[in-house]
């Protein structure tokens, strides 16, 4: 509680205190002039000694000065600003919020245990009317106990807490504290922030502003940065050897801190069994890669772990992954029947080049395509061929059921009008681009999955390809354009049909109408297009803490690495149980709603039907966020300053100021200290009058007596 003034300009009146002093020092001397024959002797006595003791009536001076000071203070309209209550002072009951950092970096040096002790001391120090909330936070924040005065409950809640696998973010926790304090009716708010204050936990733009008058008390647990070794990444390279898939894991190991180089054993575990161990030498603050011998991947949902010896920060000492054998896409390539040359030579050669045998090709000409060729086929590529009405209908059914179709237009292309709605548009006559050096691809839709891998710098250059001829193409309403030539005409278009996808490339994929097939980008482009129409999605080897997986979404499950619902015994109609790495069980009933699984523990999650033990259950690997291993700290005061001093919105600043002034005026009116000050000042002036008269009378009497 501090003294404030509504009209501080009147404090300038305090300068009036000098008036009585000057009166004492000057006017009094002029009024009591004594004539004397000569000052010859008086002047020989040191002058300074006379001046120093000229003020005789100190009490009078004090009365006059105090009265003037009180008058000035009264006009300045003083009041005690209760909105700026000092939270440390015992000014009424407190609303205490304890924010406890639960991120995995708190395990270093028993910081979390010490934080629990601190929190317990805070709860023990609560007054009888105080209330407290316990909030734990990592990436997110969770209210363990909300605004209670029950110390036993608060301390019991502390007993259940442990270090999580999460990273650090202060924003959500402070937001919770803000909410608790705003909802509280207690006059004083205190927020205890118990953390190791990692800089990565605060972006500085969290939009959290604690209520006015609230106080943040940081309690920092700091340890010297340990010699921390972490597995930062794992690269799983697939190879097809003798029809079997082999994987070569390469792990990247980094070391933070340390002094001298040291040897580190890095081990590879598969399904819980240690398979290989490699020893590498790491310099201080160094990094190294370790490549293990390839292993044959035969079983789906194989769990793998790269592990380094445990140090003070154990959460980043392992890197989990899940891999399953890849399945080759089955592609049917259809050529024209009358061509004397092999129009699909470049295309077939490109699709056959892959280490892991991801494509299985079936090559047919239009005159010998059989109906059963579409069975088991993921996608069909029609390369410069004329399609009759019956084939088109079969393809329509194929696409509608989820198959993919790529129609490459060339010299011999033809499509029946009866199936025109299957295509993204209508193909016209060939158009030559013989002027100059031919046409180029002018626009690519890099946001599309086909071109997304080429979006980065030095990730593939399509501008080097020259296009000398292409068929004109008129888009239908539901089509989207993936690429255009530099003259704006359509080069690549897409249309969704049923569950499948139809793509049309308006030039050839050989070297007849363009030289794209001679460009480096040709092979990845063909692979990407084939995977896209074949519906292949790259399964994630692992998730990171904080991600959420919808178990009711087949696409999400496929992305998560589910390759066989049969072997995992998962079906849409069954209930699901998810076992967390710590052994906790979460049930998901078989209703129509989403089944969100929050991945908040590091390790392997197992998803299976309740009561069953599948041979190869669906497993999800989860790893910690490596940012948390960055132990660079932030100054708590810097964080608090951003939380406590918001930058007012210019549009609302005037309103805020007005509100503040209204509050101040209201406080001043209620307290009305100026009245008491005026009364006191008048009382002092009356006393001064009485006393000065008395002093004057005494002085006159003394003079008369002297004469």
């Amino acid at each position, binding site marked *: 509680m501090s003294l404030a003034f509504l009209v501080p300009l009147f404090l300038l009146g305090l300068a009036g205190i000098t008036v009585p002093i000057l009166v004492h020092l000057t006017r*009094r*001397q*002029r009024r*009591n*002039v*004594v*004539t*004397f*024959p*000569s*000052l*010859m*002797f*008086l*002047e*020989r*006595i040191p*002058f300074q*000694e*006379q*001046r120093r*003791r*000229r003020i*005789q009536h100190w009490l009078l001076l004090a009365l006059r000065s105090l009265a003037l000071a009180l008058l000035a203070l009264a006009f300045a309209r003083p009041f005690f600003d209760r909105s700026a209550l000092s939270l440390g002072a015992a000014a009424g009951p407190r609303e205490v919020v304890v924010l406890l950092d639960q991120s995995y970096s708190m395990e270093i040096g028993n910081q979390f245990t010490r934080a629990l002790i601190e929190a317990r001391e805070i709860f023990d120090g609560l007054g009888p009317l105080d209330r407290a909330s316990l909030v734990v936070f990592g990436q997110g924040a969770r209210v363990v106990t909300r605004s209670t005065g029950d110390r036993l409950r608060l301390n019991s809640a502390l007993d259940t807490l442990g270090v999580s696998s999460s990273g650090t973010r202060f924003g959500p926790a402070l937001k919770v504290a803000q909410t608790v304090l705003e909802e509280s009716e207690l006059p004083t708010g205190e927020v205890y922030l118990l953390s190791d204050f990692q800089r990565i936990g605060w972006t500085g733009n969290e939009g959290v502003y604690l209520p006015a008058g609230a106080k943040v008390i940081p309690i920092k647990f700091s340890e010297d940065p340990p010699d921390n070794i972490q597995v930062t990444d794992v690269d799983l390279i697939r190879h097809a050897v003798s029809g079997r898939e082999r994987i070569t894991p390469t792990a990247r190991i980094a070391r933070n801190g340390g002094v001298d180089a040291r040897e580190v054993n890095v081990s590879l575990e598969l399904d819980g069994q240690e398979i290989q161990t490699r020893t590498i030498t790491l310099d201080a603050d160094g990094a190294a890669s370790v490549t293990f011998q390839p292993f044959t991947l035969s079983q789906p949902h194989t769990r793998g772990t790269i592990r380094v010896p445990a140090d003070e920060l154990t959460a980043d000492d392992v890197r989990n992954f899940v891999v399953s054998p890849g399945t080759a896409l089955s592609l049917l390539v259809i050529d024209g029947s009358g061509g004397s040359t092999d129009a699909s030579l470049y295309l077939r050669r490109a699709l056959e080049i892959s280490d892991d045998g991801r494509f299985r090709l079936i090559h047919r000409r239009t005159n010998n395509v059989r109906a059963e060729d579409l069975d088991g086929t993921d996608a069909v590529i029609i390369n410069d061929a004329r399609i009759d009405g019956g084939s088109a209908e079969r393809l329509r059914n194929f696409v509608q059921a989820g198959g993919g179709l790529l129609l490459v237009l060339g010299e011999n292309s033809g499509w029946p009008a009866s199936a025109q709605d299957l295509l993204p548009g209508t193909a016209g006559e060939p158009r030559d681009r013989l002027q100059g050096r031919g046409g180029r691809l002018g626009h690519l839709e890099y946001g599309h999955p086909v071109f997304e891998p080429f979006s980065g710098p030095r990730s593939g250059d399509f501008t080097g390809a020259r296009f000398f001829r292409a068929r004109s193409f008129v888009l239908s309403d539901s089509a989207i354009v993936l690429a255009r030539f530099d003259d704006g005409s359509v080069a690549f278009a897409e249309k969704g049909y049923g569950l499948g996808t139809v793509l049309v490339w308006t030039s050839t994929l050989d070297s007849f109408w363009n030289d794209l097939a001679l460009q480096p980008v040709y092979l990845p482009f063909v692979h990407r297009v084939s995977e896209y129409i074949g519906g292949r999605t790259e399964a994630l080897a692992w998730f990171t803490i904080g991600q959420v997986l919808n178990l009711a979404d087949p696409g999400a499950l496929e992305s998560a690495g589910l390759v066989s619902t049969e072997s995992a015994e998962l079906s849409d109609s069954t209930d699901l149980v998810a076992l967390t790495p710590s052994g906790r069980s979460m049930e998901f009933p078989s209703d129509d709603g989403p089944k969100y699984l929050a991945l908040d523990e590091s390790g392997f999650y197992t998803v299976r039907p309740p009561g069953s033990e599948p041979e190869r259950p669906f497993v999800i690997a989860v790893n910690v966020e490596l940012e948390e291993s960055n132990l660079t700290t932030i100054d708590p005061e810097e964080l608090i300053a951003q939380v406590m001093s918001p930058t007012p919105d210019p549009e609302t600043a005037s309103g805020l100021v007005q509100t503040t002034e209204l509050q101040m005026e209201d406080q001043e009116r209620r307290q009305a200290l100026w009245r008491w000050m005026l009364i006191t000042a008048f009382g002092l002036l009356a006393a001064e009058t009485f006393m000065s008269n008395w002093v004057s009378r005494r*002085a006159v009497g*003394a*003079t008369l007596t*002297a*004469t």
Partner: protein
Amino acid sequence: MGVARASHSGARFLDPAVLARISNLELLARTVVDGFLNGLHRSPYLGFSLEFAEHRQYMPGDDIRRIDWKLFGRSDRHYIKLFEADTNANFSVLLDVSASMSYGSHEVSKLDYARYLTACLTFFSNRQRDRVGLVTFDHDIVEYVPPSMKHMDTILHLLHRASAGRAGSLREPLVKITELLGRKGIVVIISDFYEHPDEILSSISLLRGRGHDVIVFHVLDPAELSFPFEDSSSFEDLETREQIPVIPNRLRDDYKRLVSEHVESVEHRLAENRIDYVLLDTSKPLDLALFQYLLARERWTRKR
């Protein structure tokens, strides 16, 4: 002893506070002189000249040795012989009328006291048939009445209207007066002497060097001697109008010490040059001054 006796016998005529009520200076002088002389056992008219002047009836206090016994045998009455022992001497009073002389902490200012003294001494000397003169001065000569048997009334008139106003000094007026007083005589200097002792001596010694018999009356108000002030005040110099803040309680001892040193220094230096010095307190009766004057006259007469 003489002083004490005089104080008892003629105190009511010599108290300055009483004299202040007498506006006629001649009457004042006569009253003082007669009252003073009547209190003495030995007549001040005692002269040492052999030149007979006249007989006068014996008055109590006259020296019985001066009774003319032969005349007593013839007339059966007591007469005493009067001789023109001190007659025809030049008697000049140098009266300081500078502003500082106007100061008075009671009814009688220093200038009043000096005027009474001047009137008395002049009257007394005139009775002894001296030629009496008067010079008033501040930093220059203000009025000058040359010594003469007939100037008594003029002197009293000038004394009556003498007033203090300007700043004063000794050196310049005394140099001029020395030139004016050509014939040797008796010179009485009445002042408050706010000058350095060396300056005072050097100024007065001019007169002494011309053969004058000099007697100095240093007139000071009792407030100048005791510094009885209590309240802190601004003290203003009557001559220079300069003001300084003064805390009397703090300065009193220093002031009195300085004044005492000044008086002693002046008296000592004048005595070394055979100049009579008398310190007068204006609250005290005039008999001390008169008595001292008579003693000086007697000494000078004997010397001659």
